[in-house]
């Protein structure tokens, strides 16, 4: 789900070839699970079809595809909307949040502001679950607890990441 948006984010930085996009994706987001070339080009093809990127003329050189892709206004709007809006708070968001933070730092966006907005969204959901616990029976309370503990784990990750943003920004800039 986040691969097309992540590629859009990488293209927001600068127009790139598919090969370069794959290399950057694997460096920052792959973490032992490289993106297959086939998926890179299929995704870029879909993004081009939907008007979110443009592929220039094929350039001479080795490799399967030497088109330089650039993000369009439509693609930039979609990426902005994704990056700036908090995600629906639910457990196991680490990968999406991680991608957002790294892309924000890469593009010089206010990663801390996005994390703060996400924290607010998480706390709102926790407030709803806590109210549910206080007003319903034990079964509902146990289910709400499950959600609360997972959201709390996300929040702890958000707090620790906030505290490490400067170091992470340096790493993203230097690599």
């Amino acid at each position, binding site marked *: 789900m986040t691969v097309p948006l992540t590629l859009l984010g990488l293209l927001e930085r600068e127009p790139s070839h598919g090969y370069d996009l794959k290399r950057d994706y694997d460096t920052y987001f792959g973490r032992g699970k490289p993106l297959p070339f086939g998926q890179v080009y299929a995704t870029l093809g879909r993004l081009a079809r939907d008007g979110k990127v443009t592929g220039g003329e094929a350039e001479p050189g080795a490799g399967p595809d030497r088109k330089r892709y650039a993000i369009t206004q439509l693609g930039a709007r979609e990426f902005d909307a994704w990056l700036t809006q908090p995600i629906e708070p639910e457990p196991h968001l680490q990968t999406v949040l991680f991608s957002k933070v790294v892309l924000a730092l890469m593009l010089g966006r*206010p990663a801390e502001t996005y994390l703060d907005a996400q924290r607010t969204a998480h706390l709102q959901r*926790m*407030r709803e679950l806590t109210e549910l616990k206080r007003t319903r029976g034990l079964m509902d309370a146990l289910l709400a607890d499950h959600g609360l503990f997972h959201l709390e784990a996300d929040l702890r990750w958000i707090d620790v990441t906030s505290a490490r943003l400067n170091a992470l920004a340096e790493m993203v800039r230097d690599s």
Partner: protein
Amino acid sequence: MTSPNPLAPRSRGFLIEAKDICHSFGKTTALAGASLSVTGGEILAVMGPSGSGKSTLLHCLAGIFTPESGEVWFDGQRLDTLSDNKRTELRRTAFGFVFQFGQLVPELTVVDNIALPLLLNRVSRKTAYAKANAWLPRLGLSGLGARRTGELSGGEAQRVALARALVAQPKVLFADEPTGSLDTLTGEMVMDLLVSIAREEGTTVVLVTHDARVAAYADREVMVRDGTVIRRAELQADAQADAQVEVSR
């Protein structure tokens, strides 16, 4: 008591308001222009990492510390410029306090501890003890009134601290990490009681916590970072403005 100031920010419906307050301890800056407002009857959680200034903010709002600059208003009067005696009187009559460790008097009984604020307010001994005893069942402490507080469990002691903080029917309850020393379930029981009673009594609560599960009992939360308060509206506005700038590039 000081008369309400007609120029106070009551018209905006705030019971407490801090405007750009600064406070430091030696060379360490604890608050660097913190602003905050609390509506009457609201339960507000003040969150932030260790050392962010959240406890100092609570102490300034409660008139325990006097900020070096900025203003603190409570119920129509300027708190930070009141004399020490008047602030002490205000803390005794209008504010209740709960801290991480109950800070009960271990040599006294449960009911003695609960009656203490009333006795300090010169309420008659008979009335004070009648009121203190009436709080026992509300906090699940029936039958424990004669026990010395040094013999209580952590959860029981914190419930006594809560009763002591509320017995004088304060307008505001200031709670600093009230469940910080309790296990999860006991902490939930204390928070559940705190919120239920605050709602019944119409008490405003300012709750300092680093624990998101505790903050989730509040109506609203604010984040303190590097001695300033970050507001939700500002966060959203910042994110949206940034998005618009980026899109229009």
